[in-house]
Protein backbone atom coordinates (compact mmCIF):
# COMPACT_ATOMS: atom_id res chain seq x y z
CA UNK A 1 0.00 0.00 0.00
CA UNK A 2 1.01 3.58 -0.43
CA UNK A 3 2.33 4.82 2.90
CA UNK A 4 0.53 7.73 4.46
CA UNK A 5 2.23 11.07 4.82
CA UNK A 6 2.39 12.57 8.27
CA UNK A 7 1.73 16.28 8.53
CA UNK A 8 3.15 18.71 11.03
CA UNK A 9 1.42 22.03 11.66
CA UNK A 10 4.54 24.18 11.78
CA UNK A 11 6.05 22.64 8.67
CA UNK A 12 2.78 23.14 6.80
CA UNK A 13 2.47 26.77 7.95
CA UNK A 14 6.02 27.43 6.82
CA UNK A 15 5.36 25.95 3.38
CA UNK A 16 2.14 27.96 3.05
CA UNK A 17 3.91 31.14 4.15
CA UNK A 18 6.56 30.85 1.46
CA UNK A 19 3.91 29.88 -1.05
CA UNK A 20 2.01 33.06 -0.18
CA UNK A 21 5.11 35.23 -0.40
CA UNK A 22 5.70 33.96 -3.91
CA UNK A 23 2.08 34.04 -5.02
CA UNK A 24 1.23 37.48 -3.65
CA UNK A 25 4.50 39.31 -4.33
CA UNK A 26 2.50 41.66 -6.57
CA UNK A 27 0.97 43.19 -3.43
CA UNK A 28 4.43 44.63 -2.69
CA UNK A 29 4.56 46.21 -6.13
CA UNK A 30 1.19 47.78 -5.38
CA UNK A 31 2.75 49.17 -2.20
CA UNK A 32 5.62 50.76 -4.10
CA UNK A 33 3.13 52.39 -6.44
CA UNK A 34 1.12 53.66 -3.47
CA UNK A 35 4.21 55.15 -1.83
CA UNK A 36 5.37 56.86 -5.03
CA UNK A 37 1.90 58.34 -5.30
CA UNK A 38 2.25 59.46 -1.69
CA UNK A 39 5.55 61.21 -2.40
CA UNK A 40 4.15 62.95 -5.48
CA UNK A 41 1.07 64.17 -3.65
CA UNK A 42 3.16 65.37 -0.70
CA UNK A 43 4.95 67.85 -2.94
CA UNK A 44 1.87 69.95 -2.90
CA UNK A 45 2.61 70.72 0.77
CA UNK A 46 0.12 70.62 3.57
CA UNK A 47 0.08 74.36 4.22
CA UNK A 48 1.11 77.38 2.30
CA UNK A 49 1.19 80.99 3.41
CA UNK A 50 2.83 84.14 2.26
CA UNK A 51 3.36 87.69 3.62
CA UNK A 52 4.63 90.72 1.82
CA UNK A 53 6.07 93.87 3.42
CA UNK A 54 7.55 96.65 1.29
CA UNK A 55 10.11 95.10 -0.92
CA UNK A 56 10.01 91.69 0.80
CA UNK A 57 7.81 88.80 0.07
CA UNK A 58 8.03 85.69 2.26
CA UNK A 59 6.34 82.53 1.21
CA UNK A 60 6.20 79.60 3.62
CA UNK A 61 5.33 76.15 2.49
CA UNK A 62 4.92 73.31 4.96
CA UNK A 63 5.59 69.75 3.93
CA UNK A 64 4.79 66.56 5.78
CA UNK A 65 5.41 62.90 5.07
CA UNK A 66 2.21 61.78 6.78
CA UNK A 67 0.40 61.17 3.56
CA UNK A 68 2.85 58.41 2.58
CA UNK A 69 2.19 56.67 5.87
CA UNK A 70 -1.57 57.09 5.61
CA UNK A 71 -1.61 55.65 2.10
CA UNK A 72 0.56 52.74 3.25
CA UNK A 73 -1.94 52.13 6.06
CA UNK A 74 -4.78 51.97 3.56
CA UNK A 75 -2.73 49.51 1.54
CA UNK A 76 -2.07 47.39 4.65
CA UNK A 77 -5.78 47.32 5.45
CA UNK A 78 -6.47 46.17 1.91
CA UNK A 79 -3.82 43.43 2.19
CA UNK A 80 -5.28 42.12 5.45
CA UNK A 81 -8.78 42.27 4.04
CA UNK A 82 -7.96 40.51 0.77
CA UNK A 83 -6.13 37.64 2.48
CA UNK A 84 -9.49 36.60 3.90
CA UNK A 85 -11.40 36.65 0.61
CA UNK A 86 -12.48 33.47 -1.14
CA UNK A 87 -10.04 33.99 -3.95
CA UNK A 88 -7.04 33.88 -1.62
CA UNK A 89 -8.29 31.33 0.87
CA UNK A 90 -9.60 28.75 -1.56
CA UNK A 91 -6.12 28.45 -3.02
CA UNK A 92 -4.87 27.00 0.26
CA UNK A 93 -7.42 24.22 0.03
CA UNK A 94 -6.07 23.00 -3.31
CA UNK A 95 -2.97 21.88 -1.45
CA UNK A 96 -2.26 20.66 2.08
CA UNK A 97 -3.96 22.78 4.71
CA UNK A 98 -6.40 23.07 7.53
CA UNK A 99 -8.10 26.24 8.70
CA UNK A 100 -5.59 26.91 11.44
CA UNK A 101 -2.54 26.61 9.19
CA UNK A 102 -4.24 28.71 6.52
CA UNK A 103 -4.93 31.46 9.07
CA UNK A 104 -1.48 31.33 10.63
CA UNK A 105 0.33 31.55 7.32
CA UNK A 106 -1.95 34.41 6.24
CA UNK A 107 -1.24 36.21 9.51
CA UNK A 108 2.48 35.66 8.92
CA UNK A 109 2.15 37.15 5.47
CA UNK A 110 0.15 40.13 6.76
CA UNK A 111 2.81 40.82 9.39
CA UNK A 112 5.59 40.60 6.82
CA UNK A 113 3.74 42.95 4.51
CA UNK A 114 3.11 45.40 7.35
CA UNK A 115 6.77 45.40 8.40
CA UNK A 116 7.95 45.95 4.85
CA UNK A 117 5.30 48.67 4.47
CA UNK A 118 6.28 50.37 7.73
CA UNK A 119 10.01 50.43 7.02
CA UNK A 120 9.62 51.59 3.43
CA UNK A 121 7.04 54.23 4.38
CA UNK A 122 9.51 55.70 6.89
CA UNK A 123 12.31 55.58 4.35
CA UNK A 124 10.03 57.21 1.77
CA UNK A 125 9.75 60.09 4.21
CA UNK A 126 13.55 60.41 4.10
CA UNK A 127 13.55 60.15 0.33
CA UNK A 128 10.94 62.89 0.23
CA UNK A 129 13.14 65.16 2.39
CA UNK A 130 16.09 64.55 0.11
CA UNK A 131 14.03 65.48 -2.93
CA UNK A 132 12.76 68.64 -1.18
CA UNK A 133 16.32 69.48 -0.16
CA UNK A 134 17.56 69.38 -3.70
CA UNK A 135 14.58 71.02 -5.36
CA UNK A 136 14.24 73.95 -2.92
CA UNK A 137 17.87 74.26 -1.89
CA UNK A 138 19.30 73.95 1.63
CA UNK A 139 19.29 77.71 2.28
CA UNK A 140 15.51 77.83 1.92
CA UNK A 141 14.73 75.19 4.52
CA UNK A 142 13.66 76.75 7.80
CA UNK A 143 12.74 73.93 10.16
CA UNK A 144 14.99 72.31 12.71
CA UNK A 145 12.98 69.04 12.35
CA UNK A 146 14.00 68.71 8.76
CA UNK A 147 17.12 66.78 9.56
CA UNK A 148 16.35 63.62 11.49
CA UNK A 149 18.78 61.90 13.77
CA UNK A 150 19.25 58.17 13.18
CA UNK A 151 17.67 57.28 16.56
CA UNK A 152 14.63 59.40 15.77
CA UNK A 153 14.34 57.77 12.41
CA UNK A 154 14.52 54.34 14.04
CA UNK A 155 11.89 55.29 16.62
CA UNK A 156 9.51 56.62 14.02
CA UNK A 157 10.15 53.56 11.89
CA UNK A 158 9.18 51.26 14.75
CA UNK A 159 6.10 53.29 15.63
CA UNK A 160 4.98 53.47 12.01
CA UNK A 161 5.50 49.74 11.56
CA UNK A 162 3.45 48.92 14.63
CA UNK A 163 0.60 51.16 13.46
CA UNK A 164 0.63 49.47 10.09
CA UNK A 165 0.66 46.02 11.69
CA UNK A 166 -2.37 47.06 13.71
CA UNK A 167 -4.17 48.30 10.61
CA UNK A 168 -3.51 45.10 8.66
CA UNK A 169 -4.72 43.02 11.62
CA UNK A 170 -7.90 45.13 11.67
CA UNK A 171 -8.27 44.50 7.94
CA UNK A 172 -7.89 40.78 8.48
CA UNK A 173 -10.40 40.81 11.32
CA UNK A 174 -12.97 42.77 9.29
CA UNK A 175 -12.45 40.46 6.34
CA UNK A 176 -13.09 37.41 8.49
CA UNK A 177 -16.15 39.04 10.01
CA UNK A 178 -17.48 39.83 6.55
CA UNK A 179 -16.89 36.27 5.42
CA UNK A 180 -18.85 34.91 8.34
CA UNK A 181 -21.69 37.39 7.96
CA UNK A 182 -21.72 39.01 4.49
CA UNK A 183 -23.86 41.83 5.88
CA UNK A 184 -20.74 43.35 7.40
CA UNK A 185 -19.52 44.13 3.90
CA UNK A 186 -22.08 46.93 3.88
CA UNK A 187 -22.26 47.59 7.59
CA UNK A 188 -18.56 48.21 8.28
CA UNK A 189 -17.94 50.88 5.61
CA UNK A 190 -21.23 52.51 6.62
CA UNK A 191 -20.17 52.53 10.27
CA UNK A 192 -16.80 53.98 9.30
CA UNK A 193 -18.31 56.85 7.36
CA UNK A 194 -20.84 57.37 10.13
CA UNK A 195 -18.08 57.64 12.72
CA UNK A 196 -16.29 60.24 10.62
CA UNK A 197 -19.40 62.42 10.81
CA UNK A 198 -19.72 61.77 14.52
CA UNK A 199 -16.21 63.01 15.03
CA UNK A 200 -16.97 66.19 13.16
CA UNK A 201 -20.17 66.77 15.09
CA UNK A 202 -18.56 65.53 18.30
CA UNK A 203 -21.83 64.56 19.88
CA UNK A 204 -22.88 61.57 21.87
CA UNK A 205 -20.99 58.98 23.81
CA UNK A 206 -19.73 57.01 20.84
CA UNK A 207 -17.38 59.77 19.79
CA UNK A 208 -15.97 59.86 23.33
CA UNK A 209 -15.39 56.12 23.26
CA UNK A 210 -13.77 56.47 19.87
CA UNK A 211 -11.50 59.28 21.02
CA UNK A 212 -10.50 57.29 24.05
CA UNK A 213 -9.72 54.27 21.90
CA UNK A 214 -7.56 56.30 19.57
CA UNK A 215 -5.88 58.04 22.48
CA UNK A 216 -5.12 54.66 24.05
CA UNK A 217 -2.60 54.24 21.26
CA UNK A 218 -1.49 57.67 20.12
CA UNK A 219 -1.17 59.33 23.51
CA UNK A 220 1.13 56.60 24.78
CA UNK A 221 4.42 58.24 25.78
CA UNK A 222 6.56 55.16 26.20
CA UNK A 223 7.54 53.35 23.04
CA UNK A 224 7.81 50.10 24.94
CA UNK A 225 4.27 50.32 26.35
CA UNK A 226 2.97 51.37 22.96
CA UNK A 227 4.53 48.27 21.40
CA UNK A 228 3.07 46.02 24.08
CA UNK A 229 -0.39 47.54 23.65
CA UNK A 230 -0.34 47.08 19.90
CA UNK A 231 1.04 43.55 20.13
CA UNK A 232 -1.76 42.60 22.54
CA UNK A 233 -4.48 44.03 20.32
CA UNK A 234 -3.00 42.49 17.16
CA UNK A 235 -2.80 39.12 18.87
CA UNK A 236 -6.42 39.41 20.00
CA UNK A 237 -7.55 40.35 16.48
CA UNK A 238 -5.82 37.40 14.81
CA UNK A 239 -6.88 35.02 17.56
CA UNK A 240 -10.54 35.95 17.23
CA UNK A 241 -10.27 35.73 13.43
CA UNK A 242 -8.95 32.17 13.79
CA UNK A 243 -11.74 31.25 16.20
CA UNK A 244 -14.39 32.73 13.93
CA UNK A 245 -13.20 30.99 10.78
CA UNK A 246 -12.23 27.62 12.21
CA UNK A 247 -15.61 26.07 11.49
CA UNK A 248 -16.25 27.74 8.14
CA UNK A 249 -16.75 25.61 5.06
CA UNK A 250 -14.74 26.22 1.91
Amino acid at each position, binding site marked *: *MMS*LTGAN*LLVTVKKQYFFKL*KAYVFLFFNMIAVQILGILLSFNGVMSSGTGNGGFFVSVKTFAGNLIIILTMIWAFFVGRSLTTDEYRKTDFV*FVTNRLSSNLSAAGFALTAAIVGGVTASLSGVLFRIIVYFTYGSQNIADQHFFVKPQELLMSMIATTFYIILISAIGYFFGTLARKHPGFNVLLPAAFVGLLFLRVGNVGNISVVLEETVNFFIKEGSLMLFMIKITGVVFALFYSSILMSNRLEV
Partner: protein
Amino acid sequence: MKVIECNRLSKSYERIRAINDLSLSIEENKITGLIGRNGAGKTTLLKIIAGLLHKTSGEIRVFSEEPFNSLKVSANIIFIDDNLAFPKSFCLEDILEAAGTFYENWDMSLARGLLEYFALHPKQFHKNLSKGMQSTFNVILGISSRCPLTIFDEPTVGMDGAVRKDFYRALLKDYVQNPRTIILSSHLLNEIENILEDILLLNKGEKCLHMPITDLKELAVGLRGKKEIVDELTKDMETYHQETLGKDSCFKVVKNNFSQIELQHVKKAGIEMLPVAAEDIYIYLTSGDKGGIDDVFNRS
Protein backbone atom coordinates in the same frame (compact mmCIF):
# COMPACT_ATOMS: atom_id res chain seq x y z
CA MET B 1 -7.75 -1.44 5.50
CA LYS B 2 -10.68 0.84 5.02
CA VAL B 3 -9.81 4.26 3.68
CA ILE B 4 -13.25 5.80 4.07
CA GLU B 5 -15.97 4.85 6.47
CA CYS B 6 -19.32 6.60 6.79
CA ASN B 7 -21.96 5.71 9.26
CA ARG B 8 -25.45 7.24 8.91
CA LEU B 9 -23.88 10.36 7.42
CA SER B 10 -26.23 13.23 6.61
CA LYS B 11 -25.72 16.71 5.23
CA SER B 12 -28.33 19.43 4.84
CA TYR B 13 -28.15 22.81 3.16
CA GLU B 14 -30.74 25.19 4.54
CA ARG B 15 -33.84 23.13 3.75
CA ILE B 16 -32.45 20.61 1.29
CA ARG B 17 -31.08 17.31 2.41
CA ALA B 18 -28.13 16.57 0.13
CA ILE B 19 -26.94 13.39 1.85
CA ASN B 20 -29.32 11.26 3.82
CA ASP B 21 -28.33 8.52 6.25
CA LEU B 22 -25.48 7.22 4.15
CA SER B 23 -23.43 4.29 5.40
CA LEU B 24 -20.60 2.89 3.35
CA SER B 25 -16.95 1.97 3.40
CA ILE B 26 -14.32 2.13 0.69
CA GLU B 27 -11.37 -0.22 0.70
CA GLU B 28 -7.87 0.95 -0.12
CA ASN B 29 -6.28 0.67 -3.55
CA LYS B 30 -9.50 0.44 -5.50
CA ILE B 31 -10.88 2.62 -8.23
CA THR B 32 -14.43 3.42 -7.27
CA GLY B 33 -16.85 5.17 -9.56
CA LEU B 34 -19.25 7.47 -7.76
CA ILE B 35 -22.23 7.60 -10.07
CA GLY B 36 -25.44 9.51 -9.74
CA ARG B 37 -27.75 11.91 -11.51
CA ASN B 38 -27.41 15.67 -11.16
CA GLY B 39 -28.07 16.63 -7.55
CA ALA B 40 -27.66 13.09 -6.23
CA GLY B 41 -25.18 14.34 -3.61
CA LYS B 42 -21.95 13.23 -5.28
CA THR B 43 -20.05 16.48 -4.85
CA THR B 44 -21.35 16.99 -1.32
CA LEU B 45 -20.16 13.53 -0.29
CA LEU B 46 -16.74 14.04 -1.85
CA LYS B 47 -16.33 17.48 -0.26
CA ILE B 48 -17.16 16.05 3.16
CA ILE B 49 -14.57 13.30 2.58
CA ALA B 50 -12.00 15.93 1.60
CA GLY B 51 -12.74 17.96 4.74
CA LEU B 52 -14.08 20.94 2.82
CA LEU B 53 -17.63 20.69 4.18
CA HIS B 54 -19.14 19.80 7.54
CA LYS B 55 -21.34 16.82 8.04
CA THR B 56 -24.69 17.62 9.62
CA SER B 57 -24.95 14.35 11.52
CA GLY B 58 -23.58 10.82 11.54
CA GLU B 59 -20.00 9.73 11.39
CA ILE B 60 -17.24 9.99 8.82
CA ARG B 61 -13.71 8.64 9.07
CA VAL B 62 -11.00 9.07 6.45
CA PHE B 63 -7.73 7.29 7.27
CA SER B 64 -9.39 6.75 10.66
CA GLU B 65 -9.69 10.51 11.27
CA GLU B 66 -12.44 13.09 11.14
CA PRO B 67 -11.49 14.87 7.88
CA PHE B 68 -12.66 18.40 8.72
CA ASN B 69 -9.57 20.39 9.79
CA SER B 70 -7.33 17.31 9.76
CA LEU B 71 -3.88 18.04 8.38
CA LYS B 72 -3.14 14.35 8.02
CA VAL B 73 -6.19 13.83 5.82
CA SER B 74 -5.36 16.92 3.78
CA ALA B 75 -1.78 15.77 3.25
CA ASN B 76 -2.96 12.43 1.88
CA ILE B 77 -5.86 13.62 -0.24
CA ILE B 78 -6.11 15.61 -3.40
CA PHE B 79 -9.53 16.80 -4.46
CA ILE B 80 -9.84 17.76 -8.12
CA ASP B 81 -12.89 19.47 -9.57
CA ASP B 82 -13.44 22.20 -12.14
CA ASN B 83 -13.44 24.89 -9.50
CA LEU B 84 -9.87 24.90 -8.22
CA ALA B 85 -8.53 28.33 -7.24
CA PHE B 86 -4.96 29.09 -8.20
CA PRO B 87 -3.05 32.32 -7.57
CA LYS B 88 -3.52 34.72 -10.47
CA SER B 89 0.20 35.38 -10.58
CA PHE B 90 1.15 31.70 -11.07
CA CYS B 91 1.73 30.11 -14.45
CA LEU B 92 1.14 26.38 -14.85
CA GLU B 93 4.73 25.55 -14.03
CA ASP B 94 4.59 27.59 -10.80
CA ILE B 95 1.48 25.69 -9.75
CA LEU B 96 3.15 22.34 -10.39
CA GLU B 97 6.20 23.42 -8.40
CA ALA B 98 4.03 24.56 -5.51
CA ALA B 99 2.22 21.21 -5.57
CA GLY B 100 5.63 19.55 -5.38
CA THR B 101 6.43 21.35 -2.14
CA PHE B 102 3.17 20.26 -0.53
CA TYR B 103 2.70 16.67 -1.70
CA GLU B 104 5.35 14.19 -0.65
CA ASN B 105 4.80 11.68 -3.48
CA TRP B 106 4.67 14.34 -6.18
CA ASP B 107 6.20 13.21 -9.48
CA MET B 108 7.46 16.27 -11.35
CA SER B 109 8.74 14.43 -14.40
CA LEU B 110 5.35 12.78 -14.88
CA ALA B 111 3.66 16.16 -14.53
CA ARG B 112 5.95 17.76 -17.11
CA GLY B 113 5.54 14.80 -19.44
CA LEU B 114 1.76 15.01 -19.28
CA LEU B 115 1.84 18.79 -19.70
CA GLU B 116 3.86 18.40 -22.86
CA TYR B 117 1.73 15.54 -24.18
CA PHE B 118 -1.47 17.55 -23.77
CA ALA B 119 0.17 20.57 -25.44
CA LEU B 120 -0.08 22.84 -22.41
CA HIS B 121 2.64 25.45 -22.30
CA PRO B 122 4.29 25.67 -18.84
CA LYS B 123 4.31 29.47 -18.96
CA GLN B 124 0.60 29.84 -19.65
CA PHE B 125 -1.80 31.11 -16.99
CA HIS B 126 -4.58 28.88 -15.77
CA LYS B 127 -7.30 31.49 -16.22
CA ASN B 128 -6.39 31.97 -19.88
CA LEU B 129 -6.93 28.30 -20.73
CA SER B 130 -10.11 27.04 -22.31
CA LYS B 131 -12.52 25.12 -20.12
CA GLY B 132 -11.37 21.75 -21.44
CA MET B 133 -7.70 22.63 -21.06
CA GLN B 134 -8.27 23.80 -17.50
CA SER B 135 -9.81 20.42 -16.75
CA THR B 136 -6.86 18.72 -18.42
CA PHE B 137 -4.41 20.66 -16.29
CA ASN B 138 -6.39 19.84 -13.14
CA VAL B 139 -6.29 16.11 -13.81
CA ILE B 140 -2.53 16.31 -14.45
CA LEU B 141 -2.26 17.84 -10.98
CA GLY B 142 -4.42 15.03 -9.60
CA ILE B 143 -2.48 12.19 -11.20
CA SER B 144 1.01 13.55 -10.52
CA SER B 145 0.37 14.23 -6.83
CA ARG B 146 0.07 10.46 -6.25
CA CYS B 147 -1.97 10.98 -3.12
CA PRO B 148 -3.06 7.82 -1.27
CA LEU B 149 -6.62 9.06 -1.78
CA THR B 150 -7.18 10.80 -5.09
CA ILE B 151 -10.61 12.25 -5.74
CA PHE B 152 -11.81 13.43 -9.14
CA ASP B 153 -15.18 15.16 -9.11
CA GLU B 154 -16.50 15.28 -12.67
CA PRO B 155 -12.96 15.74 -13.98
CA THR B 156 -13.70 15.65 -17.70
CA VAL B 157 -15.95 18.72 -17.94
CA GLY B 158 -15.23 20.44 -21.24
CA MET B 159 -12.62 17.92 -22.44
CA ASP B 160 -12.97 16.60 -25.96
CA GLY B 161 -13.34 12.88 -26.63
CA ALA B 162 -9.71 12.19 -27.42
CA VAL B 163 -8.45 13.92 -24.30
CA ARG B 164 -10.97 12.06 -22.15
CA LYS B 165 -9.76 8.73 -23.49
CA ASP B 166 -6.14 9.71 -22.88
CA PHE B 167 -6.95 10.82 -19.37
CA TYR B 168 -8.62 7.54 -18.43
CA ARG B 169 -5.71 5.64 -19.89
CA ALA B 170 -3.11 7.75 -18.10
CA LEU B 171 -5.00 7.36 -14.84
CA LEU B 172 -5.19 3.58 -15.23
CA LYS B 173 -1.52 3.25 -16.15
CA ASP B 174 -0.34 5.31 -13.24
CA TYR B 175 -2.71 3.45 -10.94
CA VAL B 176 -1.23 0.11 -11.99
CA GLN B 177 2.28 1.38 -11.29
CA ASN B 178 1.34 3.15 -8.06
CA PRO B 179 -1.77 1.57 -6.63
CA ARG B 180 -3.85 3.94 -4.55
CA THR B 181 -7.44 4.67 -3.71
CA ILE B 182 -9.16 6.62 -6.43
CA ILE B 183 -12.69 7.95 -6.51
CA LEU B 184 -14.01 9.16 -9.81
CA SER B 185 -17.41 10.80 -9.91
CA SER B 186 -19.43 11.11 -13.04
CA HIS B 187 -22.98 11.01 -14.30
CA LEU B 188 -21.83 9.16 -17.42
CA LEU B 189 -21.27 5.55 -16.46
CA ASN B 190 -20.58 4.09 -19.90
CA GLU B 191 -17.55 6.34 -20.26
CA ILE B 192 -15.76 5.13 -17.15
CA GLU B 193 -17.09 1.63 -16.53
CA ASN B 194 -14.06 0.03 -18.15
CA ILE B 195 -11.60 1.41 -15.64
CA LEU B 196 -13.72 0.95 -12.53
CA GLU B 197 -13.49 -1.87 -10.06
CA ASP B 198 -16.35 -0.83 -7.79
CA ILE B 199 -19.36 1.28 -8.40
CA LEU B 200 -21.14 3.36 -5.80
CA LEU B 201 -24.49 4.55 -7.04
CA LEU B 202 -26.10 7.48 -5.24
CA ASN B 203 -29.68 8.50 -5.74
CA LYS B 204 -31.24 11.51 -4.01
CA GLY B 205 -28.61 11.52 -1.29
CA GLU B 206 -28.97 7.84 -0.50
CA LYS B 207 -26.92 4.80 -1.39
CA CYS B 208 -28.61 2.94 -4.19
CA LEU B 209 -26.00 0.23 -4.58
CA HIS B 210 -22.31 -0.39 -3.96
CA MET B 211 -20.81 -3.43 -5.67
CA PRO B 212 -18.11 -4.57 -8.07
CA ILE B 213 -18.85 -3.28 -11.56
CA THR B 214 -18.85 -6.84 -12.93
CA ASP B 215 -21.75 -7.69 -10.63
CA LEU B 216 -23.68 -4.68 -11.83
CA LYS B 217 -23.39 -5.85 -15.41
CA GLU B 218 -25.06 -9.12 -14.47
CA LEU B 219 -27.56 -7.62 -12.08
CA ALA B 220 -30.43 -7.43 -14.51
CA VAL B 221 -31.75 -9.05 -17.63
CA GLY B 222 -34.15 -7.79 -20.26
CA LEU B 223 -37.09 -9.85 -21.52
CA ARG B 224 -38.82 -9.08 -24.77
CA GLY B 225 -41.93 -10.76 -26.14
CA LYS B 226 -45.67 -11.04 -25.70
CA LYS B 227 -46.76 -8.89 -22.80
CA GLU B 228 -49.00 -11.42 -21.07
CA ILE B 229 -46.36 -14.15 -21.18
CA VAL B 230 -43.61 -11.84 -19.91
CA ASP B 231 -45.85 -10.59 -17.11
CA GLU B 232 -46.72 -14.17 -16.13
CA LEU B 233 -43.04 -15.22 -16.05
CA THR B 234 -41.90 -12.25 -13.98
CA LYS B 235 -44.83 -11.69 -11.69
CA ASP B 236 -42.88 -12.13 -8.43
CA MET B 237 -39.71 -10.47 -9.60
CA GLU B 238 -38.18 -7.11 -8.91
CA THR B 239 -38.86 -5.00 -11.97
CA TYR B 240 -36.52 -2.14 -12.85
CA HIS B 241 -38.13 -0.96 -16.02
CA GLN B 242 -40.84 -1.77 -18.52
CA GLU B 243 -42.08 -0.38 -21.76
CA THR B 244 -44.66 -1.43 -24.31
CA LEU B 245 -43.57 -2.19 -27.80
CA GLY B 246 -46.21 -2.06 -30.48
CA LYS B 247 -49.64 -3.53 -29.77
CA ASP B 248 -49.13 -6.44 -27.41
CA SER B 249 -45.37 -6.84 -26.94
CA CYS B 250 -43.31 -5.47 -24.14
CA PHE B 251 -39.78 -5.09 -22.89
CA LYS B 252 -39.19 -5.65 -19.20
CA VAL B 253 -35.99 -5.44 -17.18
CA VAL B 254 -35.95 -7.59 -14.04
CA LYS B 255 -33.43 -8.74 -11.47
CA ASN B 256 -31.37 -11.60 -12.84
CA ASN B 257 -32.07 -14.46 -10.47
CA PHE B 258 -33.64 -16.99 -12.78
CA SER B 259 -33.10 -20.64 -11.97
CA GLN B 260 -32.13 -23.08 -14.73
CA ILE B 261 -35.69 -24.38 -14.97
CA GLU B 262 -37.11 -20.91 -15.22
CA LEU B 263 -34.62 -20.09 -17.94
CA GLN B 264 -35.87 -23.05 -20.00
CA HIS B 265 -39.44 -21.88 -19.47
CA VAL B 266 -38.52 -18.52 -20.81
CA LYS B 267 -36.87 -20.01 -23.87
CA LYS B 268 -39.80 -22.31 -24.60
CA ALA B 269 -42.28 -19.50 -24.33
CA GLY B 270 -40.46 -17.70 -27.14
CA ILE B 271 -39.31 -14.82 -25.02
CA GLU B 272 -36.02 -13.14 -25.96
CA MET B 273 -33.48 -12.62 -23.18
CA LEU B 274 -31.19 -9.65 -23.56
CA PRO B 275 -28.24 -8.46 -21.49
CA VAL B 276 -28.66 -5.00 -20.01
CA ALA B 277 -25.79 -2.52 -20.08
CA ALA B 278 -24.59 -1.09 -16.78
CA GLU B 279 -25.48 2.41 -17.98
CA ASP B 280 -29.08 1.35 -18.62
CA ILE B 281 -29.44 -0.26 -15.21
CA TYR B 282 -28.16 2.94 -13.67
CA ILE B 283 -30.74 4.97 -15.51
CA TYR B 284 -33.57 2.58 -14.60
CA LEU B 285 -32.52 2.57 -10.95
CA THR B 286 -32.41 6.32 -10.70
CA SER B 287 -35.29 7.36 -12.92
CA GLY B 288 -37.86 7.53 -10.11
CA ASP B 289 -41.55 6.68 -10.33
CA LYS B 290 -42.47 9.32 -12.84
CA GLY B 291 -43.25 7.96 -16.27
CA GLY B 292 -40.37 9.76 -17.95
CA ILE B 293 -40.06 12.91 -19.99
CA ASP B 294 -42.85 11.85 -22.37
CA ASP B 295 -45.40 12.17 -19.59
CA VAL B 296 -44.73 15.89 -19.28
CA PHE B 297 -45.80 16.38 -22.88
CA ASN B 298 -48.72 13.93 -22.78
CA ARG B 299 -50.38 15.61 -19.84
CA SER B 300 -53.10 17.67 -21.51
